[in-house]
């Protein structure tokens, strides 16, 4: 594990990429903890686009494994307006996963609301899902998002419609007990 984390810090991007591959495998098996967050954030600051995109996925996966850290939020937020739709979708997904680990702030909530206006349906739907998670897991919501979600509920795409319904249902329910 130590080698993997040190590899993420390497300035040699081939070495960092190989370590990232190892880390992705460990994350899929839930074998990594909060010790990976620092090296991942460092990689986000100096990596190539490819490694940075994969590092965002890793931060989301850590959140899914219930490992959250406030340092992950600004890192993930950096991708909220990335030119790549897949990176924006991953950013929204990672925010929703991190919310499940108790991490999320007003800036990320605001970014998710802005993503409801994204041109890509995958980004919009994932932002809706994350906004539902923010309401459920963090008790965070905003009138601006309700208005946009109501509009999305009338979409001709069932995918968008159901995503909006999911978010609105959780916003109405409010935070879950014991989370």
């Amino acid at each position: 594990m130590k080698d993997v984390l040190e590899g993420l810090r390497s300035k040699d991007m081939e070495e960092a990429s190989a370590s990232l591959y190892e880390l992705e495998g460990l994350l899929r098996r839930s074998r990594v903890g909060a010790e990976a967050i620092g090296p991942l954030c460092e990689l986000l600051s100096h990596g190539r686009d490819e490694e940075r995109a994969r590092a965002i996925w890793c931060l989301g996966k850590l959140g899914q494994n219930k490992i959250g850290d406030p340092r992950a939020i600004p890192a993930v937020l950096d991708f909220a307006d990335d030119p790549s739709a897949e990176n924006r979708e991953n950013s929204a997904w990672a925010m929703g996963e991190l919310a499940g680990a108790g991490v999320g702030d007003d800036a990320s909530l605001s970014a998710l609301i802005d993503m409801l206006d994204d041109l890509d349906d995958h980004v919009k739907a994932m932002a809706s899902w994350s906004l539902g998670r923010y309401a459920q897991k963090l008790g965070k919501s905003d009138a601006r998002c309700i208005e946009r979600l109501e509009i999305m509920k009338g979409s001709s795409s069932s995918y968008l419609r159901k995503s909006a319904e999911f978010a609105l249902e959780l916003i109405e329910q409010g935070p879950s007990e014991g989370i």
Partner: protein
Amino acid sequence: MRTRCLWRAADGRCSNCKAKRIRLDVLKLPDYERCEPERDYEECEFFIEKPVPRS
């Protein structure tokens, strides 16, 4: 015609973390982890054709 998805594992499970969240939470599919090509491929928003290896 969608035939082979990049995310479908050999045991039939979906290996796309985002897709699984949507399948479970948004679409409320009871067997959200499993994917049946004939039933699911045409409708799945996360379907990506699996690349054919170069010979």
